[in-house]
């Protein structure tokens, strides 16, 4: 699969079960890590897509997991019947080693799923994650206004502004995650790119050719002591 940005259409999600087996099994093992036998979830349905470059592959998986009934008061305060959990995982496979980069799971409630499919897919086509809590977007509104003033942003319509506020709020969460995962002194937060989705930013400002093509061979430079 040539290294290219995630395709948003359906077929991009249809990796063969053979390709999905290793990353999906790794993600399940990580999910069940530390659990005693008999209390572990089992894999239900799974679909995935992959972005590859060099020896690295980045799998993005969506899976349903079947949680067994729980009667152990140490694990669940109240007895729980069998339930289904919907998870999205990102698994980096590099030189046959796997690493779980992201795990987002939430109980599947049939009603909520139908609601989400029927409503959100209609007017926020690019929304690629669960909707943000309503109050979170409201909290972000003043920051977003400052952002628009600072970077002189205007949008063509109210819907576009509303959509960009949603992207901005989601990016604030992403920046916090990146901040938490940085071992240096860098500070991450609001920048002039904070109203762009990850896909938009990658497509507009970055240069995927660098990882796909090796370019013309150049002669090696003499090292300084040779000079």
């Amino acid at each position, binding site marked *: 699969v040539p290294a290219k940005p995630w395709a948003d259409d359906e077929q991009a999600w249809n990796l063969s079960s053979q390709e999905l087996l290793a990353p999906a099994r790794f993600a399940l093992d990580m999910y069940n890590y530390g659990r005693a036998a008999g209390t572990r979830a089992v894999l239900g349905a799974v679909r995935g897509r992959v972005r590859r*470059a060099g020896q690295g592959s980045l799998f993005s998986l969506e899976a349903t997991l079947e949680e067994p009934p729980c009667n152990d008061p140490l694990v669940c305060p109240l007895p729980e019947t069998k339930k289904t959990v919907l998870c999205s995982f990102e698994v980096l496979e590099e030189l046959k080693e796997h690493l779980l980069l992201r795990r987002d799971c939430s109980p599947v409630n049939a009603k909520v799923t139908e609601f989400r499919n029927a409503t959100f897919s209609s007017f926020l086509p690019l929304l690629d994650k669960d909707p943000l809590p309503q109050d979170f977007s409201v909290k972000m509104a003043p920051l977003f206004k400052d952002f628009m003033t600072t970077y002189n942003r205007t949008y063509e319509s109210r819907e576009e502004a509303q959509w960009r506020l949603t992207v901005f709020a989601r990016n604030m969460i992403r920046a916090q995650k*990146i901040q938490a995962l940085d071992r240096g002194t860098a500070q991450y937060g609001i920048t002039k790119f904070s109203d762009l989705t990850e896909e938009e930013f990658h497509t507009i400002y970055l240069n995927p050719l660098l*990882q796909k093509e090796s370019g013309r061979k150049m002669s*090696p430079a003499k090292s*300084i002591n040779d000079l």
Partner: protein
Amino acid sequence: APPEWDWRKKGAVTEVKNQGMCGSCWAFSVTGNVEGQWFLNRGTLLSLSEQELLDCDKVDKACLGGLPSNAYAAIKNLGGLETEDDYGYQGHVQTCNFSAQMAKVYINDSVELSRNENKIAAWLAQKGPISVAINAFGMQFYRHGIAHPFRPLCSPWFIDHAVLLVGYGNRSNIPYWAIKNSWGSDWGEEGYYYLYRGSGACGVNTMASSAVVN
């Protein structure tokens, strides 16, 4: 290598530029390097044209990306680079309008540098700013400080941005590369990005290269 170095303090680096909504970082990385090489070998700092590379380097793909190694070859084959003033940046590809008579600088060759960061630092201190390519993880939200993402998040296998090493040093004992970006001076530290030095962070050591001006 000296413990620290900064070509900005020695007049070898032009102002931070802005590629706009175009994936032309490769052109800015190369012109930044050639500007430094010309300064060190001819004593004049000239701001050079990226638009010439977008329009006239037919191997690379203008706003859809390119590779420094191809760009050096294009400059050599074209007969040199015009200045930014003579062939200004538009941020989208146009018909090639290069004139050899207008070229103010030329290059003789290009070289690929070692992947050893100490050798890269020594070469930089002696020979000038270096074109490099990195994984741009987190840069969308970078504001200041020394970035040091977890290696799997900033894997050297996913290189997607070209920039210019202009110096290196330590801040509170944390080693860094000083990197000139091309997203304008209202991003990062006045247009600069500081990346941890010594661990191959984000693949910074994987595609170091330079033009050669005899």
